[in-house]
Protein backbone atom coordinates (compact mmCIF):
# COMPACT_ATOMS: atom_id res chain seq x y z
CA UNK A 1 0.00 0.00 0.00
CA UNK A 2 2.75 2.44 0.98
CA UNK A 3 5.05 1.32 -1.82
CA UNK A 4 2.63 1.97 -4.63
CA UNK A 5 1.74 5.48 -3.50
CA UNK A 6 5.08 6.45 -5.05
CA UNK A 7 3.40 6.45 -8.49
CA UNK A 8 0.80 9.19 -7.75
CA UNK A 9 3.47 11.20 -5.93
CA UNK A 10 5.84 11.17 -8.91
CA UNK A 11 2.96 11.99 -11.24
CA UNK A 12 1.82 14.94 -9.13
CA UNK A 13 5.40 16.25 -8.95
CA UNK A 14 5.56 16.03 -12.74
CA UNK A 15 2.31 18.02 -12.94
CA UNK A 16 3.49 20.66 -10.51
CA UNK A 17 6.93 21.33 -12.01
CA UNK A 18 5.83 23.50 -14.98
CA UNK A 19 3.32 25.26 -12.71
CA UNK A 20 6.07 25.94 -10.18
CA UNK A 21 8.24 27.40 -12.92
CA UNK A 22 5.45 29.73 -14.04
CA UNK A 23 4.81 30.91 -10.48
CA UNK A 24 8.54 31.31 -9.74
CA UNK A 25 8.95 33.32 -12.94
CA UNK A 26 6.11 35.64 -11.93
CA UNK A 27 8.04 36.75 -8.82
CA UNK A 28 11.21 37.54 -10.73
CA UNK A 29 12.21 40.87 -12.22
CA UNK A 30 12.69 41.08 -15.98
CA UNK A 31 16.42 41.64 -15.41
CA UNK A 32 16.74 38.48 -13.40
CA UNK A 33 14.82 36.43 -15.95
CA UNK A 34 16.93 37.61 -18.87
CA UNK A 35 20.11 37.57 -16.78
CA UNK A 36 20.25 33.81 -16.60
CA UNK A 37 18.99 30.67 -14.91
CA UNK A 38 17.93 30.73 -11.26
CA UNK A 39 15.96 28.03 -9.51
CA UNK A 40 14.30 30.39 -7.00
CA UNK A 41 13.53 34.12 -7.39
CA UNK A 42 16.69 35.91 -6.20
CA UNK A 43 15.15 39.36 -5.96
CA UNK A 44 11.60 38.55 -4.94
CA UNK A 45 9.23 41.12 -6.45
CA UNK A 46 5.48 41.73 -6.56
CA UNK A 47 5.91 44.32 -9.31
CA UNK A 48 4.40 42.06 -12.00
CA UNK A 49 1.22 41.52 -10.00
CA UNK A 50 1.02 45.22 -9.18
CA UNK A 51 0.98 46.05 -12.90
CA UNK A 52 -1.91 43.64 -13.49
CA UNK A 53 -4.02 44.87 -10.60
CA UNK A 54 -3.56 48.55 -11.46
CA UNK A 55 -3.80 48.47 -15.27
CA UNK A 56 -7.46 48.34 -16.46
CA UNK A 57 -6.61 46.52 -19.73
CA UNK A 58 -5.25 43.68 -17.58
CA UNK A 59 -7.77 43.38 -14.79
CA UNK A 60 -10.74 43.94 -17.11
CA UNK A 61 -9.61 40.84 -18.95
CA UNK A 62 -10.28 38.83 -15.79
CA UNK A 63 -13.65 40.49 -15.25
CA UNK A 64 -14.59 39.75 -18.88
CA UNK A 65 -13.54 36.12 -18.69
CA UNK A 66 -15.35 35.48 -15.42
CA UNK A 67 -18.48 37.26 -16.72
CA UNK A 68 -18.96 35.21 -19.86
CA UNK A 69 -17.96 31.96 -18.14
CA UNK A 70 -20.56 32.54 -15.41
CA UNK A 71 -23.21 33.51 -17.95
CA UNK A 72 -22.46 30.42 -20.00
CA UNK A 73 -22.67 28.15 -16.95
CA UNK A 74 -26.05 29.61 -15.96
CA UNK A 75 -27.50 29.31 -19.50
CA UNK A 76 -26.15 25.80 -20.05
CA UNK A 77 -27.46 24.41 -16.77
CA UNK A 78 -30.84 26.15 -17.05
CA UNK A 79 -31.68 24.69 -20.47
CA UNK A 80 -29.97 21.36 -19.83
CA UNK A 81 -32.00 20.58 -16.69
CA UNK A 82 -35.44 20.09 -18.35
CA UNK A 83 -33.85 18.40 -21.38
CA UNK A 84 -31.94 15.93 -19.21
CA UNK A 85 -35.17 15.27 -17.30
CA UNK A 86 -36.96 14.48 -20.57
CA UNK A 87 -34.17 12.11 -21.67
CA UNK A 88 -34.07 10.34 -18.32
CA UNK A 89 -37.85 9.93 -17.83
CA UNK A 90 -39.56 9.71 -21.21
CA UNK A 91 -39.30 8.03 -24.58
CA UNK A 92 -40.19 10.28 -27.46
CA UNK A 93 -39.84 10.39 -31.21
CA UNK A 94 -36.18 10.73 -32.19
CA UNK A 95 -34.82 10.80 -28.64
CA UNK A 96 -31.80 8.55 -29.28
CA UNK A 97 -30.87 10.31 -32.51
CA UNK A 98 -31.15 13.68 -30.80
CA UNK A 99 -28.95 12.56 -27.93
CA UNK A 100 -26.23 11.32 -30.29
CA UNK A 101 -26.47 14.46 -32.44
CA UNK A 102 -25.95 16.60 -29.34
CA UNK A 103 -22.78 14.66 -28.53
CA UNK A 104 -21.39 15.01 -32.07
CA UNK A 105 -21.14 18.75 -31.50
CA UNK A 106 -18.18 18.09 -29.25
CA UNK A 107 -16.38 16.60 -32.25
CA UNK A 108 -16.42 19.67 -34.45
CA UNK A 109 -13.04 21.36 -34.32
CA UNK A 110 -13.37 24.90 -32.96
CA UNK A 111 -10.97 25.93 -35.71
CA UNK A 112 -13.66 24.94 -38.23
CA UNK A 113 -16.24 27.19 -36.64
CA UNK A 114 -14.18 30.27 -35.86
CA UNK A 115 -14.91 32.23 -39.01
CA UNK A 116 -18.61 31.30 -39.43
CA UNK A 117 -19.14 32.13 -35.76
CA UNK A 118 -17.65 35.54 -36.27
CA UNK A 119 -20.01 36.19 -39.18
CA UNK A 120 -23.06 34.78 -37.40
CA UNK A 121 -22.60 36.80 -34.23
CA UNK A 122 -21.74 39.95 -36.18
CA UNK A 123 -24.94 39.49 -38.21
CA UNK A 124 -27.14 39.27 -35.11
CA UNK A 125 -25.37 42.24 -33.53
CA UNK A 126 -23.86 40.41 -30.59
CA UNK A 127 -20.21 40.69 -31.58
CA UNK A 128 -17.93 41.70 -28.70
CA UNK A 129 -20.49 41.03 -25.95
CA UNK A 130 -20.41 38.56 -23.07
CA UNK A 131 -23.56 36.99 -24.43
CA UNK A 132 -21.89 36.10 -27.74
CA UNK A 133 -19.11 34.09 -26.08
CA UNK A 134 -21.51 32.58 -23.55
CA UNK A 135 -23.87 31.41 -26.31
CA UNK A 136 -21.03 30.14 -28.51
CA UNK A 137 -19.64 28.02 -25.68
CA UNK A 138 -23.10 26.47 -25.31
CA UNK A 139 -22.20 24.46 -28.41
CA UNK A 140 -20.06 22.07 -26.37
CA UNK A 141 -21.24 22.81 -22.82
CA UNK A 142 -24.95 22.08 -23.29
CA UNK A 143 -24.38 18.56 -24.69
CA UNK A 144 -21.95 17.83 -21.86
CA UNK A 145 -24.37 19.15 -19.20
CA UNK A 146 -27.28 17.15 -20.62
CA UNK A 147 -25.08 14.06 -20.62
CA UNK A 148 -23.89 14.46 -17.02
CA UNK A 149 -27.28 15.53 -15.62
CA UNK A 150 -29.07 12.69 -17.39
CA UNK A 151 -26.74 10.24 -15.67
CA UNK A 152 -27.52 11.65 -12.24
CA UNK A 153 -31.26 11.89 -12.91
CA UNK A 154 -31.43 8.28 -14.09
CA UNK A 155 -30.20 7.34 -10.60
CA UNK A 156 -33.25 8.98 -8.94
CA UNK A 157 -36.12 6.47 -8.67
CA UNK A 158 -39.26 7.33 -10.60
CA UNK A 159 -41.34 6.79 -7.47
CA UNK A 160 -40.12 10.18 -6.26
CA UNK A 161 -41.94 11.89 -9.16
CA UNK A 162 -45.08 9.83 -8.73
CA UNK A 163 -45.33 10.37 -4.97
CA UNK A 164 -45.00 14.11 -5.46
CA UNK A 165 -47.84 14.21 -8.01
CA UNK A 166 -50.06 12.15 -5.69
CA UNK A 167 -49.31 14.67 -2.96
CA UNK A 168 -50.66 17.39 -5.26
CA UNK A 169 -47.43 19.01 -6.39
CA UNK A 170 -47.55 20.77 -9.76
CA UNK A 171 -44.68 19.90 -12.10
CA UNK A 172 -42.75 23.19 -11.78
CA UNK A 173 -43.04 23.11 -8.00
CA UNK A 174 -41.96 19.47 -7.83
CA UNK A 175 -39.06 20.09 -10.19
CA UNK A 176 -37.75 23.15 -8.35
CA UNK A 177 -38.31 22.14 -4.73
CA UNK A 178 -37.89 18.36 -4.75
CA UNK A 179 -36.19 17.09 -7.86
CA UNK A 180 -33.34 19.58 -8.33
CA UNK A 181 -32.29 19.43 -4.65
CA UNK A 182 -32.12 15.64 -4.93
CA UNK A 183 -29.58 15.85 -7.76
CA UNK A 184 -27.64 18.86 -6.52
CA UNK A 185 -24.36 16.90 -6.69
CA UNK A 186 -25.00 16.41 -10.41
CA UNK A 187 -25.78 20.10 -10.90
CA UNK A 188 -22.50 20.89 -9.14
CA UNK A 189 -20.51 18.55 -11.36
CA UNK A 190 -22.18 19.80 -14.56
CA UNK A 191 -21.58 23.41 -13.53
CA UNK A 192 -17.96 22.59 -12.82
CA UNK A 193 -17.42 21.12 -16.29
CA UNK A 194 -19.19 24.07 -17.95
CA UNK A 195 -17.01 26.45 -16.01
CA UNK A 196 -13.90 24.50 -16.88
CA UNK A 197 -14.45 24.19 -20.64
CA UNK A 198 -15.63 27.78 -21.00
CA UNK A 199 -12.70 29.06 -18.94
CA UNK A 200 -10.00 27.23 -20.89
CA UNK A 201 -11.39 27.74 -24.42
CA UNK A 202 -9.80 30.59 -26.23
CA UNK A 203 -10.14 30.31 -30.00
CA UNK A 204 -13.88 31.11 -30.11
CA UNK A 205 -13.70 33.57 -27.23
CA UNK A 206 -10.96 35.47 -29.01
CA UNK A 207 -12.72 35.40 -32.37
CA UNK A 208 -15.97 36.78 -30.95
CA UNK A 209 -14.51 39.69 -29.01
CA UNK A 210 -12.58 42.84 -29.81
CA UNK A 211 -12.32 45.21 -26.86
CA UNK A 212 -15.31 45.22 -24.54
CA UNK A 213 -15.45 41.49 -23.79
CA UNK A 214 -11.89 40.40 -24.52
CA UNK A 215 -10.83 37.45 -22.34
CA UNK A 216 -7.72 37.62 -20.17
CA UNK A 217 -5.99 34.85 -22.07
CA UNK A 218 -6.30 36.81 -25.32
CA UNK A 219 -4.90 39.94 -23.69
CA UNK A 220 -1.89 37.86 -22.70
CA UNK A 221 -1.23 36.82 -26.29
CA UNK A 222 -1.50 40.39 -27.49
CA UNK A 223 0.79 41.72 -24.78
CA UNK A 224 3.29 38.98 -25.46
CA UNK A 225 3.76 40.21 -29.01
CA UNK A 226 3.46 43.96 -28.50
CA UNK A 227 5.34 44.60 -25.28
CA UNK A 228 8.38 42.59 -26.23
CA UNK A 229 9.80 40.06 -23.88
CA UNK A 230 8.02 40.72 -20.61
CA UNK A 231 8.07 37.17 -19.38
CA UNK A 232 7.58 38.05 -15.71
CA UNK A 233 4.36 39.92 -16.44
CA UNK A 234 3.09 37.09 -18.65
CA UNK A 235 3.93 34.55 -15.95
CA UNK A 236 2.03 36.60 -13.35
CA UNK A 237 -1.01 36.85 -15.62
CA UNK A 238 -0.80 33.11 -16.32
CA UNK A 239 -0.55 32.32 -12.63
CA UNK A 240 -3.69 34.35 -11.95
CA UNK A 241 -5.63 32.37 -14.57
CA UNK A 242 -5.03 29.17 -12.58
CA UNK A 243 -6.64 30.50 -9.40
CA UNK A 244 -10.38 30.57 -10.36
CA UNK A 245 -10.20 26.98 -11.58
CA UNK A 246 -8.42 25.88 -8.43
CA UNK A 247 -11.11 27.50 -6.27
CA UNK A 248 -13.95 25.90 -8.23
CA UNK A 249 -12.38 22.45 -8.19
CA UNK A 250 -11.90 22.63 -4.44
CA UNK A 251 -15.67 22.92 -3.98
CA UNK A 252 -16.54 19.94 -6.17
CA UNK A 253 -13.58 17.71 -5.24
CA UNK A 254 -15.78 14.93 -3.85
CA UNK A 255 -18.10 14.79 -6.85
CA UNK A 256 -15.80 15.30 -9.80
CA UNK A 257 -14.82 11.68 -10.38
CA UNK A 258 -18.42 10.56 -9.88
CA UNK A 259 -19.74 12.98 -12.49
CA UNK A 260 -18.35 11.23 -15.52
CA UNK A 261 -18.84 7.74 -14.14
CA UNK A 262 -22.58 8.26 -13.95
CA UNK A 263 -22.92 9.46 -17.51
CA UNK A 264 -24.23 6.73 -19.75
CA UNK A 265 -22.24 5.11 -22.53
Amino acid sequence: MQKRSIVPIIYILFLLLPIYWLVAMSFKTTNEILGGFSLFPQTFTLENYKVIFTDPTWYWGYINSISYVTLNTVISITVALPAAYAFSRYRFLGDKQLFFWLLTNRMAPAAVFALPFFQLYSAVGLFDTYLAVALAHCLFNIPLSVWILEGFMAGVPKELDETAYVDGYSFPRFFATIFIPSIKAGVGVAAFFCFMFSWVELLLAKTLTAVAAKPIAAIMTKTASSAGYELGLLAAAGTLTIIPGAIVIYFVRNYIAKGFAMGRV
Partner: protein
Amino acid sequence: MKTVNQKAWFFVLPVLVLVAFNALIPMMTVVNYSVQETFGNNIFLWEGLTWFQQLLTEERFYKALGRQFMFTGLILVIEVPLGIAIALSMPRQGIWVPVCLVLMALPMLIPWNVVGAMWNIFTLPDIGLLGYFLNNVLGINYDMTQDPIAAWVTIITMDVWHWTSLVVLLAYAGLVSIPDAYYQAAKIDGASNWSVFRFIQLPKMKPVLTIAILLRFMDSFNIYTEPFVLTGGGPGNSTTLLSIDLVKRALGQFDLGPAAAMSLIYFAITLLVSWLFYTLMTKDDLN
Protein backbone atom coordinates in the same frame (compact mmCIF):
# COMPACT_ATOMS: atom_id res chain seq x y z
CA MET B 1 -39.34 1.56 -17.80
CA LYS B 2 -39.72 4.91 -19.50
CA THR B 3 -43.12 6.12 -20.59
CA VAL B 4 -43.68 7.33 -24.13
CA ASN B 5 -44.56 11.02 -24.03
CA GLN B 6 -44.17 13.22 -27.07
CA LYS B 7 -44.67 16.35 -24.97
CA ALA B 8 -41.15 15.74 -23.66
CA TRP B 9 -40.06 17.53 -26.82
CA PHE B 10 -41.02 20.82 -25.17
CA PHE B 11 -38.41 20.14 -22.49
CA VAL B 12 -35.76 19.49 -25.09
CA LEU B 13 -36.70 22.41 -27.30
CA PRO B 14 -34.53 25.13 -25.65
CA VAL B 15 -31.47 22.89 -25.91
CA LEU B 16 -32.30 22.06 -29.51
CA VAL B 17 -32.73 25.73 -30.47
CA LEU B 18 -29.51 26.89 -28.80
CA VAL B 19 -27.33 24.07 -30.10
CA ALA B 20 -28.86 24.23 -33.57
CA PHE B 21 -28.22 27.98 -33.71
CA ASN B 22 -24.56 27.36 -32.90
CA ALA B 23 -24.09 24.18 -34.91
CA LEU B 24 -26.29 24.29 -37.99
CA ILE B 25 -25.93 27.91 -39.14
CA PRO B 26 -22.10 27.92 -39.02
CA MET B 27 -22.05 24.46 -40.57
CA MET B 28 -24.22 25.68 -43.46
CA THR B 29 -21.88 28.65 -43.89
CA VAL B 30 -18.96 26.25 -44.16
CA VAL B 31 -20.81 24.07 -46.68
CA ASN B 32 -21.62 27.21 -48.65
CA TYR B 33 -17.98 28.31 -48.77
CA SER B 34 -16.75 24.87 -49.69
CA VAL B 35 -18.42 24.95 -53.10
CA GLN B 36 -17.64 28.55 -54.03
CA GLU B 37 -14.76 30.82 -54.93
CA THR B 38 -14.60 34.25 -53.32
CA PHE B 39 -12.71 37.37 -54.36
CA GLY B 40 -13.80 39.49 -51.44
CA ASN B 41 -16.58 42.12 -51.56
CA ASN B 42 -19.07 39.30 -51.15
CA ILE B 43 -18.66 38.13 -54.73
CA PHE B 44 -19.04 34.37 -54.92
CA LEU B 45 -18.68 32.02 -57.87
CA TRP B 46 -19.94 28.45 -58.00
CA GLU B 47 -17.06 25.98 -57.96
CA GLY B 48 -18.78 22.68 -57.28
CA LEU B 49 -16.46 20.03 -55.91
CA THR B 50 -13.23 21.64 -57.15
CA TRP B 51 -11.90 22.35 -53.66
CA PHE B 52 -12.56 18.83 -52.48
CA GLN B 53 -10.78 17.33 -55.48
CA GLN B 54 -7.87 19.73 -55.12
CA LEU B 55 -7.51 18.96 -51.42
CA LEU B 56 -7.71 15.20 -51.76
CA THR B 57 -4.93 15.15 -54.36
CA GLU B 58 -2.68 17.47 -52.41
CA GLU B 59 0.40 16.28 -50.56
CA ARG B 60 0.22 19.06 -47.96
CA PHE B 61 -3.16 17.84 -46.72
CA TYR B 62 -2.08 14.22 -46.38
CA LYS B 63 1.08 15.20 -44.55
CA ALA B 64 -0.88 17.30 -42.03
CA LEU B 65 -3.41 14.48 -41.66
CA GLY B 66 -0.58 11.99 -41.10
CA ARG B 67 0.95 14.19 -38.42
CA GLN B 68 -2.47 14.54 -36.80
CA PHE B 69 -2.98 10.78 -36.64
CA MET B 70 0.55 10.30 -35.33
CA PHE B 71 -0.03 12.86 -32.59
CA THR B 72 -3.39 11.42 -31.54
CA GLY B 73 -2.09 7.84 -31.74
CA LEU B 74 0.97 8.61 -29.62
CA ILE B 75 -0.89 10.47 -26.89
CA LEU B 76 -3.55 7.74 -26.66
CA VAL B 77 -0.91 5.02 -26.41
CA ILE B 78 0.82 6.92 -23.61
CA GLU B 79 -2.06 8.52 -21.72
CA VAL B 80 -4.50 5.61 -21.49
CA PRO B 81 -2.17 2.96 -19.93
CA LEU B 82 -0.45 5.62 -17.80
CA GLY B 83 -3.80 6.95 -16.59
CA ILE B 84 -4.99 3.46 -15.67
CA ALA B 85 -1.72 2.69 -13.86
CA ILE B 86 -1.95 5.88 -11.82
CA ALA B 87 -5.62 5.31 -11.00
CA LEU B 88 -4.80 1.77 -9.80
CA SER B 89 -2.11 3.00 -7.43
CA MET B 90 -4.17 5.83 -5.94
CA PRO B 91 -5.54 5.49 -2.41
CA ARG B 92 -9.23 4.47 -2.32
CA GLN B 93 -10.16 6.44 0.80
CA GLY B 94 -8.79 8.85 3.34
CA ILE B 95 -7.76 12.48 3.34
CA TRP B 96 -5.31 12.01 0.46
CA VAL B 97 -8.04 11.25 -2.07
CA PRO B 98 -9.39 14.82 -2.44
CA VAL B 99 -5.82 16.19 -2.30
CA CYS B 100 -4.77 13.91 -5.17
CA LEU B 101 -7.87 14.71 -7.22
CA VAL B 102 -7.56 18.48 -6.84
CA LEU B 103 -3.84 18.51 -7.68
CA MET B 104 -4.31 16.17 -10.62
CA ALA B 105 -7.18 18.17 -12.10
CA LEU B 106 -5.19 21.41 -11.93
CA PRO B 107 -3.62 21.23 -15.44
CA MET B 108 -7.05 20.78 -17.04
CA LEU B 109 -8.25 24.09 -15.59
CA ILE B 110 -5.57 26.26 -17.12
CA PRO B 111 -6.55 28.20 -20.27
CA TRP B 112 -5.10 26.45 -23.29
CA ASN B 113 -2.87 29.24 -24.49
CA VAL B 114 -1.50 29.64 -20.97
CA VAL B 115 -0.63 25.93 -21.12
CA GLY B 116 1.29 26.59 -24.33
CA ALA B 117 3.00 29.68 -22.91
CA MET B 118 3.82 27.86 -19.69
CA TRP B 119 5.52 25.02 -21.53
CA ASN B 120 7.32 27.51 -23.69
CA ILE B 121 8.79 29.18 -20.59
CA PHE B 122 9.48 25.77 -19.04
CA THR B 123 11.47 24.48 -22.03
CA LEU B 124 13.51 27.57 -23.01
CA PRO B 125 17.06 26.22 -23.39
CA ASP B 126 18.77 29.02 -21.47
CA ILE B 127 16.28 30.03 -18.75
CA GLY B 128 13.58 27.32 -18.65
CA LEU B 129 13.73 24.72 -15.89
CA LEU B 130 13.47 21.72 -18.22
CA GLY B 131 15.48 23.22 -21.07
CA TYR B 132 18.28 24.30 -18.74
CA PHE B 133 18.34 20.95 -16.97
CA LEU B 134 18.52 18.96 -20.23
CA ASN B 135 21.17 21.15 -21.82
CA ASN B 136 23.42 22.04 -18.93
CA VAL B 137 23.00 19.24 -16.41
CA LEU B 138 22.38 16.21 -18.58
CA GLY B 139 24.31 17.61 -21.52
CA ILE B 140 21.61 16.73 -24.07
CA ASN B 141 21.45 19.21 -26.90
CA TYR B 142 17.81 20.25 -26.66
CA ASP B 143 16.24 23.11 -28.59
CA MET B 144 12.76 22.59 -29.91
CA THR B 145 12.89 25.61 -32.20
CA GLN B 146 15.65 23.86 -34.17
CA ASP B 147 15.08 20.15 -33.81
CA PRO B 148 11.82 18.55 -35.07
CA ILE B 149 12.23 15.53 -32.79
CA ALA B 150 12.65 17.76 -29.74
CA ALA B 151 9.53 19.69 -30.84
CA TRP B 152 7.53 16.47 -31.11
CA VAL B 153 8.74 15.17 -27.76
CA THR B 154 7.76 18.52 -26.24
CA ILE B 155 4.20 18.68 -27.63
CA ILE B 156 3.59 15.04 -26.67
CA THR B 157 4.94 15.61 -23.15
CA MET B 158 2.80 18.74 -22.86
CA ASP B 159 -0.34 16.85 -23.84
CA VAL B 160 0.48 14.00 -21.46
CA TRP B 161 0.95 16.61 -18.73
CA HIS B 162 -2.27 18.37 -19.67
CA TRP B 163 -4.72 15.50 -20.16
CA THR B 164 -3.55 12.25 -18.51
CA SER B 165 -5.49 13.35 -15.43
CA LEU B 166 -8.75 13.05 -17.36
CA VAL B 167 -8.06 9.35 -17.91
CA VAL B 168 -6.98 9.03 -14.27
CA LEU B 169 -10.18 10.65 -12.96
CA LEU B 170 -12.44 8.53 -15.14
CA ALA B 171 -10.58 5.26 -14.50
CA TYR B 172 -10.56 6.06 -10.79
CA ALA B 173 -14.32 6.71 -10.84
CA GLY B 174 -14.76 3.27 -12.44
CA LEU B 175 -12.51 1.63 -9.84
CA VAL B 176 -14.19 3.04 -6.75
CA SER B 177 -17.56 1.85 -8.03
CA ILE B 178 -16.44 -1.81 -7.78
CA PRO B 179 -18.05 -3.38 -4.66
CA ASP B 180 -15.65 -4.84 -2.07
CA ALA B 181 -17.34 -8.24 -2.42
CA TYR B 182 -15.66 -8.69 -5.82
CA TYR B 183 -12.21 -8.31 -4.29
CA GLN B 184 -13.05 -10.62 -1.42
CA ALA B 185 -14.27 -13.30 -3.82
CA ALA B 186 -11.06 -12.93 -5.84
CA LYS B 187 -9.00 -13.27 -2.66
CA ILE B 188 -10.78 -16.48 -1.68
CA ASP B 189 -10.12 -17.88 -5.17
CA GLY B 190 -6.46 -16.95 -4.76
CA ALA B 191 -6.46 -14.74 -7.83
CA SER B 192 -3.21 -12.99 -8.75
CA ASN B 193 -3.03 -9.19 -9.03
CA TRP B 194 -3.00 -9.55 -12.78
CA SER B 195 -6.18 -11.64 -12.91
CA VAL B 196 -7.92 -9.22 -10.54
CA PHE B 197 -7.02 -6.48 -12.97
CA ARG B 198 -7.87 -8.46 -16.11
CA PHE B 199 -11.16 -10.01 -15.00
CA ILE B 200 -12.56 -7.59 -12.42
CA GLN B 201 -11.08 -4.11 -12.70
CA LEU B 202 -10.70 -3.80 -16.46
CA PRO B 203 -14.22 -4.98 -17.37
CA LYS B 204 -15.68 -2.70 -14.69
CA MET B 205 -13.71 0.24 -16.04
CA LYS B 206 -14.72 -0.40 -19.64
CA PRO B 207 -17.65 2.07 -19.84
CA VAL B 208 -15.67 4.95 -18.34
CA LEU B 209 -12.59 4.06 -20.36
CA THR B 210 -14.72 4.22 -23.50
CA ILE B 211 -15.72 7.76 -22.56
CA ALA B 212 -12.10 8.61 -21.71
CA ILE B 213 -10.70 7.33 -25.00
CA LEU B 214 -13.51 8.93 -27.00
CA LEU B 215 -13.02 12.31 -25.31
CA ARG B 216 -9.25 12.11 -25.65
CA PHE B 217 -9.56 11.14 -29.30
CA MET B 218 -11.95 13.97 -30.17
CA ASP B 219 -10.08 16.63 -28.23
CA SER B 220 -6.59 15.63 -29.33
CA PHE B 221 -7.69 15.30 -32.94
CA ASN B 222 -9.02 18.86 -32.79
CA ILE B 223 -6.16 20.29 -30.76
CA TYR B 224 -5.05 23.71 -31.90
CA THR B 225 -4.17 26.32 -29.30
CA GLU B 226 -1.53 24.54 -27.21
CA PRO B 227 0.78 23.31 -30.00
CA PHE B 228 0.25 26.56 -31.89
CA VAL B 229 1.39 28.66 -28.96
CA LEU B 230 4.24 26.27 -28.13
CA THR B 231 5.78 25.59 -31.54
CA GLY B 232 3.70 27.57 -34.04
CA GLY B 233 3.75 24.44 -36.21
CA GLY B 234 7.52 24.48 -36.58
CA PRO B 235 10.38 24.01 -36.96
CA GLY B 236 9.50 24.06 -40.63
CA ASN B 237 6.17 22.27 -40.86
CA SER B 238 7.18 19.41 -38.59
CA THR B 239 4.48 20.02 -35.97
CA THR B 240 1.84 21.54 -38.26
CA LEU B 241 -1.15 19.46 -37.22
CA LEU B 242 -4.36 19.40 -39.25
CA SER B 243 -6.03 22.20 -37.29
CA ILE B 244 -2.96 24.45 -37.49
CA ASP B 245 -2.82 23.88 -41.24
CA LEU B 246 -6.55 24.66 -41.45
CA VAL B 247 -6.24 27.97 -39.61
CA LYS B 248 -3.24 28.89 -41.76
CA ARG B 249 -5.38 28.44 -44.85
CA ALA B 250 -8.51 30.11 -43.52
CA LEU B 251 -7.10 33.11 -41.71
CA GLY B 252 -3.52 33.32 -42.92
CA GLN B 253 -4.02 32.89 -46.65
CA PHE B 254 -7.77 33.66 -46.57
CA ASP B 255 -8.45 30.70 -48.88
CA LEU B 256 -12.01 30.32 -47.63
CA GLY B 257 -13.13 27.73 -50.20
CA PRO B 258 -10.32 25.21 -49.69
CA ALA B 259 -10.36 25.84 -45.93
CA ALA B 260 -14.09 25.13 -45.78
CA ALA B 261 -13.73 21.97 -47.86
CA MET B 262 -10.95 20.90 -45.50
CA SER B 263 -13.13 21.62 -42.44
CA LEU B 264 -15.84 19.32 -43.75
CA ILE B 265 -13.44 16.48 -44.53
CA TYR B 266 -11.81 17.01 -41.12
CA PHE B 267 -15.17 16.86 -39.34
CA ALA B 268 -16.19 13.77 -41.32
CA ILE B 269 -12.99 11.94 -40.33
CA THR B 270 -13.48 12.79 -36.63
CA LEU B 271 -17.10 11.66 -36.80
CA LEU B 272 -16.26 8.44 -38.63
CA VAL B 273 -13.46 7.38 -36.26
CA SER B 274 -15.54 8.25 -33.17
CA TRP B 275 -18.51 6.32 -34.51
CA LEU B 276 -16.39 3.26 -35.41
CA PHE B 277 -14.78 3.24 -32.00
CA TYR B 278 -18.08 3.77 -30.18
CA THR B 279 -19.76 0.96 -32.14
CA LEU B 280 -16.84 -1.41 -31.54
CA MET B 281 -16.71 -0.71 -27.81
CA THR B 282 -20.44 -1.04 -27.22
CA LYS B 283 -20.99 -4.01 -29.58
CA ASP B 284 -20.40 -6.64 -26.87
CA ASP B 285 -22.90 -5.00 -24.54
CA LEU B 286 -25.71 -5.42 -27.05
CA ASN B 287 -25.14 -9.12 -27.65
